């Protein structure tokens, strides 16, 4: 359903700016920045003062300006406040500057707009809704366009949507046939059609609208749209009408709001600051009451010596003022330097991430980058990771890795880590095979030898690979073949055959030409028994030049093995073993077989097939039955293993992360089979899992039912394991320790995410060890993350590489972008970026863990030291008539947090390590305290506070006890205020220094320097401040003249300080020791246990037997066979094209038929034998896909829509050879899309 915005429908008239301006549609100018020069200061200040702390300090500052209240000089607050505000402002300004820059860059891209019949260069930002713009190859689409015409046959147009939805396949778009005739600018300038369509929305896969032109209306669908963010490929040029521009485009609608991310510690800190504020008010009230009582009882009598300030006329008013005075004095419990220090520490941690060589990828020359500096400690608390698949877990590269031919296994897998020292040189094919693909790597010499020797099974095996597929080839120059495969799997297989001498060269609808060991061979293609999800296999029936008819089949082994001839039993067992081995390695496997057919068998079957094909009812079932008949008694040839190349170290990383109790969810736009396969190969799913639930329902009821069933199954298994004990209530689902996995598809997810079911879904999903969501849209990704974030109160991390991950990255607490790939949108939206998934373990387990630890230790100490510092004033209040007299010199108060105690704790917060980094990776359990939030929480906070208050008591009462009676050794009393101030301050500095020394677990030279340096600085500044030089200049300001000298020269003072230190520290030491002794943490044990004999845990471990997964099923789409036999994908002759383009047919079958005829007359380039041509004209190659099958298959892709079979566009995408990574197979991709446009049910009639 639609969420209607204020705009209920959009009307756009082409080439009519005046008309369109009425509606005030957004222009194509995008703005992601927050400020401009004028608004910067007010807006930024407003934002900053939304922080509780900043407002609080502003309030304090105002209080300090009132003379009756001011108990501290104003500079004690304003200096740090201004410092903080300006640092933040500069940072915000820089960030925004870069956003401006990137906006500008995008807005100023050039595009060609048709204005007044002439193509003019225009900046993107000046493009309006209703303009017609021309796009050229490899250009970004500037706005959401309605494709009007293109330079390609049938007005097809190929786009890459990687930036948009992350799918690297190319997609095809086709214009309406009426508009496709408007080829040149002159015609287009006359075009005045009006589009009425849906308002802007974020659904990438649907578009409903109608084009009104020349009194006709034409339904529009997503098939006609080019969305902003796509890149035009393989299309010389095309024209489009701007429908949505700028912020209305689907890309921008999908990008989600940029939210300011805060860490949980930030939030906790804000809560604590509020609490402390409450505490402050309590203290203030207590002291104000004290003041009232004192002024009434004593102060009133003391008035002859000290009359009340003029505005004060009674003790109550005095108490009121005293309250505010104390609020000022005690404000140092939350010094503003807290916020600055936290930022500094995070910045330091960010730099450590940037500097980490072990997160540097030399292949792409990218180092890890902390793009946000404020989230580091949250990296130590992650509980859920949401990962994209393609480009994140995998490299999206398929390699033909191993094969088993006639019971013999070939191929040796390269060590995926590249750690294998004795690396065999890849075979050199080019020497004997000029058509070989240079990028193909294979290491096993024996297969090549077998080919050379001419082993028939091997030859037949490779022949299957070279014939049984739907790959298209293009030979740009003689001998330079470019394959366009629908799925990378297929490309890999055909390329493998090519390198071993069975080169697939070209095809026509009725023939396949190969180059077998240097000899050109043309096979007659009799039939393609196409792939679909149920069959899980594909066959071709070919007649070789000798006239023998053979059926070649490849498919999932489970399916294929059932259809083998009984004599294959032994071979099947051996192959099966090999397949298990491959599956255990996470490879995608396929079994290959053939069957010889006699002419009679073929004729009989072809007859039945034609009957089935012509059937109108149950065509699918009948076709399937016919296929079934012929795919019997096959002879097994062997099996292939293709590796969907994972990124380096993915299984290890996932294993370590799950040992660290982090749950990993894979959210992918890919097909279910692919996603599951990847789940296996990266060890998220294993065969020892108790059960894997697949939720695939299309209706609310079915999804609910499936979820319910899986929960029941979980409970059941828990019950059986517990030996029939009472089943835990469903709320305890999470406590079930069974190994479950959940796989849910996008359309089910849409239901599961609805408000009434999300809890149910979450409960089920969270009880599983692994969750895979496939076929999800970018928005769904974000919704899933949001769901977990909202209900689980857990820290989430999203990792992805494509624009389709942006919303998820922005939604999660932490977003990680994989850099070094094509798109940078994910990186731009991310908080951290690096180029390899495996760096995640280091980011979390080392950097995150340390950051969290350091931040927690920092905060504990920080609150401690400030309570110790501030609460002394509280105790003093009882002796100074609650008059808000400070204990310390005001300079000490100003400098205490900034100078005397800041650096040691910063050094600890930046450099501290409890265990070495290797240990954090060896013991992933060390990560747990972060997830459970053990190191800094409300309890820890109270402990720190209590410790601080205890210290303040000691620091006040010990000097009080000693000094109130003491005299110097020359008889002068020590009980004067200045001596007391200096003694207490010195004791305080020493106590907190000892405490930081105790807290510091990792004493680098810097720590030493800062700790000793701080003490030194304290004494230096103390003596300087109390020197006669400063006094002589500013007698009023530096009236502590001589105090340091007089005080610190007294042994009794030092004895007091020593005593205070001992009394403050000894209990802490004792408690720490007891805790260590009675309840040692894992980190303590690791730290203390020097000789860890525990062997390094092997993450995951290879599973001996794997369930086999057919790679074929994963990346394939059905319908390709039909496309080939129909010939539409062949480059058509211009004549054929002319006849074709002028017509618009409502029946796709008719279209195909017509095309076939056009092709058979037009394609004369491969002179067929008379018999062949007769065969192709009389018995056209059997097209095997049916519309009904198409419907079933498509329903998975576009669940919401019902399909009409009208507009099925079949197309092949030509694709330039891509640059692929080192040593890849040079995958050639051909993407074929069979898209059902779905317009009938959403056309706006009128």
């Amino acid at each position: 359903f639609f969420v209607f915005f204020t705009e209920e429908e959009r009307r756009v008239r082409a080439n009519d700016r005046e008309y369109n301006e009425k509606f005030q549609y957004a222009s194509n100018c995008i703005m992601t920045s927050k400020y401009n020069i004028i608004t910067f200061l007010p807006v930024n200040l407003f934002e900053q003062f939304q922080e509780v702390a900043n407002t609080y300090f502003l309030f304090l500052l105002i209080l300090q300006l009132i003379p009756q209240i001011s108990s501290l000089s104003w500079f004690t607050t304003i200096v740090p406040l201004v410092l903080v505000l300006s640092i933040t402002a500069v940072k915000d300004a820089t960030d925004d500057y870069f956003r401006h820059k990137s906006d500008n860059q995008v807005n100023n891209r050039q595009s060609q707009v048709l204005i007044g019949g002439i193509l003019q260069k225009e900046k993107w930002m000046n493009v309006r809704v209703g303009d017609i713009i021309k796009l050229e190859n490899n250009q970004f689409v500037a706005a959401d366009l309605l494709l009007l015409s293109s330079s390609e046959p049938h007005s097809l147009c190929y786009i890459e949507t990687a930036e948009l939805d992350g799918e690297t396949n190319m997609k095809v778009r086709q214009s309406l046939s009426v508009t496709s005739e408007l080829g040149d600018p002159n015609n287009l300038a006359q075009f005045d059609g009006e589009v009425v369509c849906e308002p802007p929305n974020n659904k990438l896969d649907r578009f409903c609208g109608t084009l009104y032109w020349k009194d006709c209306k034409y339904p529009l669908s997503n098939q006609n749209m080019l969305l902003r963010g796509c890149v035009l490929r393989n299309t010389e040029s095309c024209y489009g009408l701007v429908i949505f521009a700028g912020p209305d485009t689907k890309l921008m609608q999908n990008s989600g709001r940029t939210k300011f991310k805060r860490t949980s510690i930030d939030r906790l800190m804000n809560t604590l600051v509020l609490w402390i504020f409450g505490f402050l008010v309590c203290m203030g009230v207590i002291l104000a009451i004290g003041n009232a009582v004192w002024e009434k009882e004593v102060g009133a009598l003391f008035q002859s010596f000290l009359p009340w300030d003029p505005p004060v006329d009674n003790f109550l008013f005095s108490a009121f003022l005293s309250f505010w005075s104390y609020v000022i004095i005690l404000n140092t419990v939350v010094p503003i330097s807290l916020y600055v220090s936290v930022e500094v520490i995070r910045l330091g941690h960010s730099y450590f991430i940037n500097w980490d060589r072990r997160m540097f990828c030399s292949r792409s020359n990218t180092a890890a980058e902390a793009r946000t500096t404020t989230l580091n400690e949250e990296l130590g608390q992650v509980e859920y990771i949401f990962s994209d698949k393609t480009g994140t877990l995998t490299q999206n590269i398929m390699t033909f890795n191993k094969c088993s031919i006639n019971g013999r296994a070939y191929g040796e897998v390269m060590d995926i880590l590249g750690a294998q020292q004795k690396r065999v040189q890849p075979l050199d094919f080019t020497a004997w095979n000029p058509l070989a693909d240079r990028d193909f790597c294979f290491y096993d010499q024996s297969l090549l030898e077998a080919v050379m020797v001419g082993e028939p099974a091997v030859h037949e095996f490779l022949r299957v690979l070279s014939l049984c597929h739907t790959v298209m080839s293009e030979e740009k120059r003689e001998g330079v073949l470019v394959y366009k495969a629908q799925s990378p799997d297929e490309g890999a297989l055909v390329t493998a055959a090519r390198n071993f001498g069975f080169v697939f060269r070209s095809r026509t609808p009725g023939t396949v030409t190969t180059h077998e060991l240097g000899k050109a061979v043309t096979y007659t293609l009799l039939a393609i028994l196409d792939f679909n999800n149920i069959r899980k296999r594909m066959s071709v029936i070919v007649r070789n030049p000798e006239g023998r008819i053979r059926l070649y089949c490849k498919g999932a082994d489970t399916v294929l093995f059932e259809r083998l001839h009984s004599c294959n039993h032994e071979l099947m067992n051996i192959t099966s073993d090999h397949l298990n081995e491959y599956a255990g390695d996470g490879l995608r496997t396929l079994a290959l077989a053939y069957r010889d057919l006699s002419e009679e068998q073929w004729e009989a079957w072809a007859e039945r097939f034609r009957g089935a094909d012509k059937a109108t009812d149950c065509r699918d079932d009948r076709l399937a039955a016919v296929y079934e008949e012929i795919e019997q008694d096959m002879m097994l040839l062997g099996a292939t293993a293709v590796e969907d190349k994972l990124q380096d170290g993915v299984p290890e990383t996932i294993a370590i992360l799950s040992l660290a109790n982090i749950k990993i969810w894979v959210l992918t736009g890919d097909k279910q089979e692919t996603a599951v396969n990847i789940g296996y190969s990266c060890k998220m799913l294993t065969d020892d899992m108790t059960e894997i639930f697949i939720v695939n329902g299309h209706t609310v009821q079915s999804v609910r039912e499936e979820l319910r069933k899986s929960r029941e199954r979980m409970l059941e298994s828990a019950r059986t394991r517990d030996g029939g004990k009472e089943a835990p209530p469903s709320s305890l689902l999470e406590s079930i320790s069974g190994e479950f996995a959940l796989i849910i598809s996008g359309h089910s997810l849409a239901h599961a995410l609805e408000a009434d079911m999300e809890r149910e879904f979450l409960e089920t999903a969270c009880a599983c060890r692994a969750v895979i969501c496939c076929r999800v849209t970018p928005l769904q990704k974000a919704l899933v993350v949001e769901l977990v974030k909202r209900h689980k109160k857990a820290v989430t991390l999203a990792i992805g590489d494509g624009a389709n991950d942006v919303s998820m990255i922005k939604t999660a607490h932490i977003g990680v972008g994989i850099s070094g790939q094509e798109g940078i949108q994910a990186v731009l939206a991310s908080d951290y970026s690096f180029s390899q998934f495996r760096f995640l373990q280091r980011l979390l387990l080392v950097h995150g863990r340390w950051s969290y630890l350091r931040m927690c230790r920092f905060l504990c100490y920080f609150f401690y030291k400030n309570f110790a510092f501030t609460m002394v004033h509280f105790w003093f209040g009882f002796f100074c008539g609650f008059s808000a007299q400070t204990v310390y010199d005001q300079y000490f108060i100003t400098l205490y947090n900034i100078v005397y105690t800041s650096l040691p704790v910063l050094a600890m917060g930046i450099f501290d390590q409890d265990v070495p980094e290797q240990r954090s990776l060896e013991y992933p359990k060390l990560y747990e305290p972060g997830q459970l939030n053990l190191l800094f929480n409300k309890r820890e906070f109270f402990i720190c506070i209590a410790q601080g208050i205890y210290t303040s008591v000691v620091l006040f009462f010990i000097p009080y006890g000693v000094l109130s009676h003491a005299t110097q050794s020359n008889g002068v009393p020590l009980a004067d205020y200045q001596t007391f101030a200096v003694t207490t301050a010195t004791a305080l500095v020493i106590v907190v220094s000892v405490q930081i020394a105790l807290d510091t677990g990792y004493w680098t030279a810097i720590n030493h320097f800062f700790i000793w340096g701080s003490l030194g600085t304290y004494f230096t500044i103390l003596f300087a401040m109390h020197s006669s030089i400063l006094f002589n200049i500013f007698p009023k300001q530096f009236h502590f003249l001589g105090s340091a000298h007089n005080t610190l020269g007294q042994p009794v003072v030092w004895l007091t300080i020593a005593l205070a230190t001992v009394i403050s520290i000894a209990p802490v030491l004792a408690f720490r020791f007891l805790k260590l002794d009675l309840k040692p943490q894992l980190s303590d044990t690791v730290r203390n246990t020097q000789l860890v004999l525990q062997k390094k845990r092997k993450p995951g471990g290879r599973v001996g037997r794997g369930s086999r997964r057919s790679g074929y099923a994963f990346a394939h789409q059905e319908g390709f066979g039909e496309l080939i036999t129909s010939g539409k994908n062949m480059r058509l002759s211009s004549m054929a094209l002319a006849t074709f383009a002028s017509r618009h047919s409502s029946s796709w079958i008719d279209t195909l038929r017509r095309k076939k005829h056009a092709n058979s007359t037009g394609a004369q380039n491969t002179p067929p034998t008379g018999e062949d041509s007769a065969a192709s004209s009389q018995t056209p190659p059997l097209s095997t896909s049916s519309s009904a099958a198409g419907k079933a298959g498509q329903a998975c892709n576009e669940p919401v829509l019902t399909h009409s079979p009208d507009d099925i566009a079949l197309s092949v995408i030509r694709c330039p050879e891509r640059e692929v990574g080192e040593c890849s197979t040079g995958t050639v991709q051909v993407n074929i899309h069979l898209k059902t446009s779905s317009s009938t049910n959403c056309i706006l009639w009128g």
Partner: protein
Amino acid sequence: MGKKQAGTGPLSRRPDNSAFKQQRLPAWSPSLTPQTVLPTFYILSLVCLLLGIWLLITVEYTYELKVDYTDAGTCEQCFNLRKHAIDSSTPCKCTVSFHVPKTFPRVSFQHDVVRLSARCLPQGDVFFYYGLRNFHQNLRRYMDSRDDAQMVGRKNNLKAPSSYCAPFDYDANGKPIAPCGAVANSMFNDSLTVMYNPTDGSKIQVPLYRKGIAWYTDKNVKFRNPPTNNTFSLQQAFEGTTRPLYWQRPVYELDDTDSNNNGFINDDLIVWMREAAFPNFKKLYGVLNRAQGPFTEGLPAGNYTLSINYNFPVEPFRGRKELVISMVTWFGGQNYFLPIAYLVTSGLILVTAVVLTTVFVKVGKKGKNMEE
């Protein structure tokens, strides 16, 4: 963040392999082990014990005597007289008798230490203090109510006292007060004379040094008189100012006997201006002059009479006044708090140490963990 150098080559952006950037700085990682913690506790306990004992012995050598003369002896009438501000100018004298049970001896074995640390102190180590109770010199507004710039003798500040001194900055006629402020205004102005009454019936005045009782820095840096010379007397320097409200004499006539002890550098003023941290305090009044008579060896035991020029009113704020006679060691005057605190601490630490040891031996898990 993370500026990228525009370098070339495949590894141009590789971070430096420095120990700092890779967080591999050599470091010392101490941890709390029983081998370090337990001995620390025992040693601490021992050190505190020894210190406590030593301090206790030292303190035992010192004596202190307090004579509360607020309303004792004949001072009761003065006490009552000073209740009312009207009578503040009426002089009132009274005497209080007290007994010194023990001689305040010279602490000979620490003589050198005393001499060393008392540079400006004349010979003699019996100290006379006046003590005040319940007098709050530590109130915020009281403490602020002074002008250090004025007291350092700056001409400008002399005639223009700081606003902090209000309401003791200008008198009713608008004349600036010198020294201004509540602190100076409330200066203790009793004068005390102690007479020794030996058994023979005679009366010998106990000679006191009344100078050199303030911090060196106060006397010589912090408090300065406005510049004077031979022709320009101190009185002239203070021309245009008036004495504080409660004072009987102007600041340049504080000491009749010694003209060098007048103005802002008057020792009594300086001592008073060094505000006490707590409401009960004592301030040095004088030091026994042991030059002659029975006082060479200290203050002999016997009967004494304290005669007071009773000026300072304490009744309004329910305060008490006392004379404190004390002697000092290297450690200062009599002060039992510190030695006792040390002894108590020592005991507590010992108890803790024993508990920790027990826990470690009996229930501690660490031992087992270590063995694994």
